[in-house]
């Protein structure tokens, strides 16, 4: 047991250029999508089309963060599904609460 305080006892593997390049590419995509969102916020007219585009781009970014940065894409299939499938419940909540909100809108202002 010749483990010393400040000396690595593990084999250090040299840097893999390919992997670092892939990380850089993902980062670039995230930055570009965010920049595109900014451009759209100032150039496009406000309305449902713009909001749907924003949500689509956001979910696209989320996909990159979860699959590439959090490496969920590298896990086994059952683990991927056990994380992603429960999120489907949220779509129900979104539909129901937006309906509820617009009903309150009608009650309050008309």
């Amino acid at each position, binding site marked *: 047991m010749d483990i010393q305080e400040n000396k690595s006892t593990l084999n250090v593997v040299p840097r893999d250029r390919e992997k670092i390049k892939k990380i850089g590419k993902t*980062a670039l995509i995230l930055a570009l999508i965010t920049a595109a969102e900014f451009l759209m916020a100032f150039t496009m007219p406000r309305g449902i089309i713009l909001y749907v585009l924003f949500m689509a781009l956001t979910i696209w970014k989320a996909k990159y963060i*979860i699959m590439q940065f959090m490496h969920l894409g590298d896990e086994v299939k059952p683990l991927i599904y056990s994380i992603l499938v429960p999120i489907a419940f*949220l779509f129900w909540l979104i539909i129901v609460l937006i309906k509820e909100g617009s009903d309150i809108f009608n009650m309050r202002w008309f």
Partner: protein
Amino acid sequence: MSAHSTAIGVSPKRGVWGGGNEPLKASYGKLMMWFFLLSDIFTFAAFLITYLAIRVSYPAYAGPATEFVGSNEYWPIPELVFDAIPFVHGVHAPLVFVGLMTFILIASSVTMVLAVEAGHRNDRNDVVKWMLWTLVGGITFLGCQAWEWSHFIHGSDTGVVLTYINDLGRNVTETVFGANLLVNEYGPASFANLFFFITGFHGFHVTIGVILLFLCFYQAAVGVYDRRGHYEMVEKIGLYWHFVDLVWVFVFTLFYLI
């Protein structure tokens, strides 16, 4: 006894759980972190979907942007509320500062991935370097958010004249500066309440993240993970940190863009 496996990600100490099996081919800690994050996804989703519901229950400001005045009758346009940047007073710079915050958080997420990648290679120097950059990004983001909150609370120089029910239950008309939980000069009371609770809860997560990042940085630097034989802790804290970034992506879209 001290025979370390050289294959990446395989060591006698990780992998197999107490029952002699390895469910879902993930270590116990990593799996539990994933399920914690799933529960946190639901918490934040509840916050953000509530924001959407309250948002659609108010009419949006419809007039020209140059004539925008805050009112509790309609929801404000975010780029007209969040248009200030530090050090220059009175300059209209819509979304510039939050944009900067977003890029800082994404950048710190990238350095975190690099730290995790270095951890896979057992490269202590690289882990320490990238953890430190991530830490810098996290602390910078927190500082930016503190400024953002402070500006939001203190408000504009002129304020806005509003009619509202004050804390004594009386209907009053007066000039309102900034924001609190009862009234604010930007929009309906719910606008500021949701801002405080959602960005506050996110900021709380970032704070916890920064503490975890520091612990991880420190342990990596003094060689705890070398002695342990693997850098899995970097990976687990990395998962949490990416999640914080993920939530911010949604907060950014819902609060500042829509």
